[in-house]
């Protein structure tokens, strides 16, 4: 069958949209020369829900929960950018305690995101154990989410003007059941005796050790290095040209972090460092994200210490933006009117346009909002970091083998909620 004159042609194969390593609904059309990638053409939009158009038909407050469903691994950070855009247009001051709570939850969210990234990235490459470890810690943080907001993922906790409520005084505990006897319960509830802040503090003390555990599994692992070192290299200049942000940019050796360079909330009052990579390959980006988890943990500890010492209001007292307390609403006519107007007609944001961005776990997440003075945004553009990163996949994977595409998708840390919007 094979002869010297046999025609050699490129193969085209479909990767996804139901491939477990495609991280969601990525359809990838790969053009192959043997097993080497000649061209990778990602087809996105399978999860397109038109969030931006939907937001144009909802009041400003009604769109907050949509933000959770964008990058559904970094829920609260999306809300942060959205609320910041409204606050800047309206010129609202956010109470300091609310800002510390926001920063603490931004960093908890970053840890959650990086744990999921680490687990799935390692799983794609063939390391099963890391996944189980990472999800064990995610469970604790999900419990924090649930204790504070009532939801494990889609929190809708940040509101324009602050956060929905203060941190609760008690951490929910495990209940007795057929499967849990007395001694199990005692062990499980041991660190849940105090407030939510006590639980977070306890977690952050343990967490440095956990990160070291993950590192012993991977950092010097021969297979891990063979699969990531020199894979998907992006030079510094190229990373900028392709519009990369976040760990993708820092992995290529560029010192850029919104939290340091253009600080928002209270990041300028906190002490943390920015890790950067050198070579711009998948392994360096892995190291950057691992160190980011440690730095996030440091930030969480600083916020916990501050929050324990400084009680105060957590949402603005401007009732054109934030609802009055339940008690005041029931006893005061004016507050009742405020409450009614806020939840029926919604707030009016002055005419203008603003771009508000946060350093999201994946890169720069921005909200560009145009308001014409109505109770709904005129145009809302969500700048998703994953969108630029996935556009760079073609360039990053050329010349690599099929199996490396999986490693590159893993290192991009993509989630389809924010790419497709």
């Amino acid at each position, binding site marked *: 069958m094979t002869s010297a004159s046999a025609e050699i042609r490129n193969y085209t194969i479909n990767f996804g949209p139901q491939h477990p390593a495609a991280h969601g609904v990525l359809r990838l059309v790969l053009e192959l020369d043997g097993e080497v990638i000649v061209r990778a053409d990602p087809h996105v939009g399978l999860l397109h829900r038109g969030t931006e158009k939907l937001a144009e038909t909802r009041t400003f407050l009604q769109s907050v929960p949509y933000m959770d469903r964008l990058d559904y691994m970094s829920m609260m950070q999306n809300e942060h950018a959205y609320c910041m855009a409204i606050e800047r247009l309206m010129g609202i001051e956010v109470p300091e305690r609310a800002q510390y709570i926001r920063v603490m939850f931004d960093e908890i969210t970053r840890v959650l995101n990086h744990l999921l990234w680490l687990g799935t990235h390692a799983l794609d490459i063939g390391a099963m154990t890391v996944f189980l470890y990472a999800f064990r810690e995610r469970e604790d943080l999900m419990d924090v989410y649930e204790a504070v907001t009532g939801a494990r993922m889609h929190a809708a906790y940040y509101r324009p003007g602050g956060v929905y409520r203060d941190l609760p005084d008690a951490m929910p505990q495990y209940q007795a059941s057929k499967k849990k006897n007395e001694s199990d319960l005692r062990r499980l509830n041991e660190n849940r005796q105090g407030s939510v802040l006590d639980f977070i503090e306890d977690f952050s003390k343990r967490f440095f050790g956990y990160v070291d555990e993950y590192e012993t599994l991977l950092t010097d692992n021969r297979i891990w290095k063979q699969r990531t070192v020199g894979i998907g290299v992006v030079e510094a200049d190229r990373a900028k040209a392709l519009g990369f942000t976040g760990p993708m940019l820092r992995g290529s050796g560029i010192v850029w972090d919104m939290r340091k360079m253009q600080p928002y909330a209270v990041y300028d009052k906190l002490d943390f460092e920015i890790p950067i990579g050198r070579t711009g390959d998948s392994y360096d980006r892995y190291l950057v994200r691992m160190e980011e988890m440690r730095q996030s943990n440091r930030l969480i500890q600083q916020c916990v210490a501050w929050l324990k010492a400084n009680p105060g209001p957590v949402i603005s007292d401007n009732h054109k933006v934030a609802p009055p307390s339940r008690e005041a609403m029931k006893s005061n006519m004016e507050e009742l009117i405020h409450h009614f107007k806020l939840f*029926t007609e919604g707030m*009016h944001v002055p005419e203008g346009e603003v771009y508000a961005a946060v350093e999201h776990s994946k890169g720069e997440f921005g909200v560009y909002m145009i308001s014409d*003075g109505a109770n709904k945004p005129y145009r809302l*553009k969500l700048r998703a970091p994953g969108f630029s990163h996935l556009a760079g996949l073609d360039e990053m994977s050329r010349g690599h083998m099929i199996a490396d595409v999986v490693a590159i998708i893993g290192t991009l840390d993509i989630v389809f909620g924010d790419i497709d919007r």
Partner: protein
Amino acid sequence: MPLTPEVLLDRVNEALGDKVLTSKIAQEQITIEVPVGDWLEVCAILRDTHALAFDLMIDLCGVDYSAYKDGAWEGQRFAVVLNLLSIKRNHRLRVRTFCADDELPILPSLMEIWPAVNWFEREAFDLFGIVFDGHPDLRRILTDYGFIGHPFRKDFPISGHVEMRYDPELKRVVYQPVSIEPRVVTPRIVREDNYGAA
């Protein structure tokens, strides 16, 4: 330390000269408007001028102004807004240009200047029907294969024109006109300035 917006705007004006139609500083952010004819040239200057050095293209998006303030808008309908960041100098800028023709909004592609605009231009084409001349691969990106129309235009209904279901007789998925009635729960209201101010 980043520059104050006023100083940065002076430098932008210096570099671009009379190519800046209007400029505005609000919320410490600069927005400039440039003529569509100078689009490529302006962007090249913004990237290459030493004092500006906008090396990262953050965002490019289309805007349909036809329903602005409930139809009080005069002027061209489609705009393209570019959000730029300079990592080298740590500052940001927003550039807007209006497409000359409302029927066929067209402007040159920025692929040569920032390769990052690739998918953003495809998105603006898909959602608004803005054509980027010179883009090497201007396909739809977010909507379905074979989608008709540009869904983010203000005259496109929120529930769309067609819906999809599985037809057990034909044994395939079929498209049919939408059966749901559009419903407005909270009407859109533009109030006068300072409405409700104490």
